[in-house]
């Protein structure tokens, strides 16, 4: 029974990590195709990728879009959560539902909707429109995380701050936000990773300046190469770094 458990766990981990391991392994492939057999390690594909100006520009674009769209989503989600948690409004349950609803809609549908809207308004596809698209998908996430983190405990501390003479803005920035710091950081980092990885919206809403996933896609169309594995490994590395940061900064602190 115990052996079966171990076998099951091993199988699960192989299932989850085999594609990643293969991806990373063949980024070091010393021949022209990322397929077995493995011909010995080389870093030349990384050198090629890092020297590719289009690729590096796309990487920078991705970072900028991720940071700005995540900040916007976080700020809007925070205000929405604070408002709906503190003020009793008619239809607040409905509003909460509407705010979270975009999570259930496929990115493709959201992208098509945005494309239509931007076309009608005369906005050209660009990194800005992609950023707006990423705010649309990340705002519900930020709202849900922050709304769930706001409890009575917090409400009472805010009341005490007001009792001691704090204005609404002071309450927000000296009490509410610091108390929500773990949730704020979690929401921000998750939004950054989602925006960083996102392809469909970025594909439909960019034209000349593109984000990294779109650049990788156009690279893939010209055939498989260990260079795509190398850039894939780099993207994976960035995501892992963000996750580790999240674990170290947010979850370890919130435990104490």
């Amino acid at each position, binding site marked *: 029974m115990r052996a079966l458990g171990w076998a099951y766990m091993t199988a699960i981990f192989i299932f989850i990590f085999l594609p990643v391991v293969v991806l990373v392994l063949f980024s070091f492939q010393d021949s022209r195709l990322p397929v077995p057999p493995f011909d010995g390690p080389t870093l030349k594909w990384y050198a090629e990728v890092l020297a590719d100006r289009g690729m590096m520009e796309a990487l920078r674009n991705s970072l900028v879009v991720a940071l700005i769209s995540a900040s916007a989503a976080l700020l809007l989600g925070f205000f929405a959560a604070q408002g709906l948690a503190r003020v009793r409004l008619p239809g607040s349950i409905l509003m909460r539902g509407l705010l979270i609803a975009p999570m259930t809609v496929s990115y493709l549908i959201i992208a098509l909707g945005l494309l239509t809207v931007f076309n009608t308004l005369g906005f050209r596809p660009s990194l800005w429109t992609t950023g707006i698209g990423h705010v649309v998908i990340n705002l519900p996430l930020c709202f849900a995380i922050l709304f769930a983190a706001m409890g009575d405990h917090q409400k*009472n*501390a805010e009341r005490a701050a007001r009792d001691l003479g704090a204005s609404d803005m002071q309450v927000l920035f000296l009490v509410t936000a610091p108390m929500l710091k773990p949730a704020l950081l979690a929401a921000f980092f998750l939004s950054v990773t989602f925006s960083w990885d996102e392809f469909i919206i970025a594909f439909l809403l960019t034209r000349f300046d593109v984000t990294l996933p779109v650049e990788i896609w156009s690279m893939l169309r010209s055939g498989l190469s260990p260079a795509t594995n190398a850039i894939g490994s780099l993207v994976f590395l960035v995501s892992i770094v963000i996750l580790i940061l999240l674990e170290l900064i947010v979850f370890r602190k919130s435990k104490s």
Partner: protein
Amino acid sequence: MTANVSLQSVSHSFGSFQALNDINLEFSAGEFVVLLGPSGCGKSTLLFILGGFLTPTSGQVLIGGRDMSRVAAKDRPTTTVFQDYALFPHMTLRDNVAFGLRMRGLGKAKRCLKADEILDLVGLVDKASRKPHELSGGQRQRVALARALAVEPEVLLLDEPLGALDLKLRRQMQEELKAIQRKIGTTFVHVTHDQEEAMAIADRIAVMNHGKVEHAAPPEEVYLRPKTLFSANFMGDLNMIPERFMGRPAGANIVHAARPENIGTSGDISLGDATLEDAAFFGTYHRCHFRAADADRTAYVAHLPVGALPQIGEAVPLYASKPLTLGTEV
């Protein structure tokens, strides 16, 4: 800093529920007032109206002679010690206590100095750089008190501040609260449902029930000469005296009763024979349960002096003295 408080015809409703019904109370400056009553009697609602967290449906609140009915909590000369303390978990004790001074624009050096002074008053100055989660319940309670006192309020409001502490610590904190109040002279308004706590600390007790004040008077008077059946019952054990023993016709809505210490084997009013059913020793008295031999089988609780205990099952003539005359309505 201290001020008198005047509540004039204050009423408050939550929807169709009348939480407060025409409250008229006057607190003198420097008085320690306790609002006492069972849960749901409106005592916390009244405290929140004083603090500015609720606007009364009708009536006026005057603090130091100024009408506060439309003044927001942050602009009132009141601060509150909340039931759950509501400390700021991300700040040190010093920053917690200095928060109100910071909001009043006091510089960092000055407010830290002042915060340490107040922390010293509650005996926590050595822990000024700690955070609230490192403290025990009693210590958190003191920080909440220090934080509320730091801004020198004219009236300090306390919402069941000792409710979460164990009995021994609660008794100790009652004495400390009373001592601090004497020292600084601020008007304290303290909400509790614990009548022993009320008697221990109050200059004046306002007994509340169903959104009304049943009796507002010093503890001795509320205990010894209660106005209503409710406040008499809430302040301690009570024996109802059947009206036929009183020797005169009872008025409408009037009943007579006696405290357990005024029931005994001698006294002014004969209650007929009663059987001792059960007794317990409390150090300074025996607490005895009697059952009358008459048709009503009336139950009496008596505190008999040590050494004067009849046998269990023995029937003795029972007497009451110092009967209380109580109204059944306010």
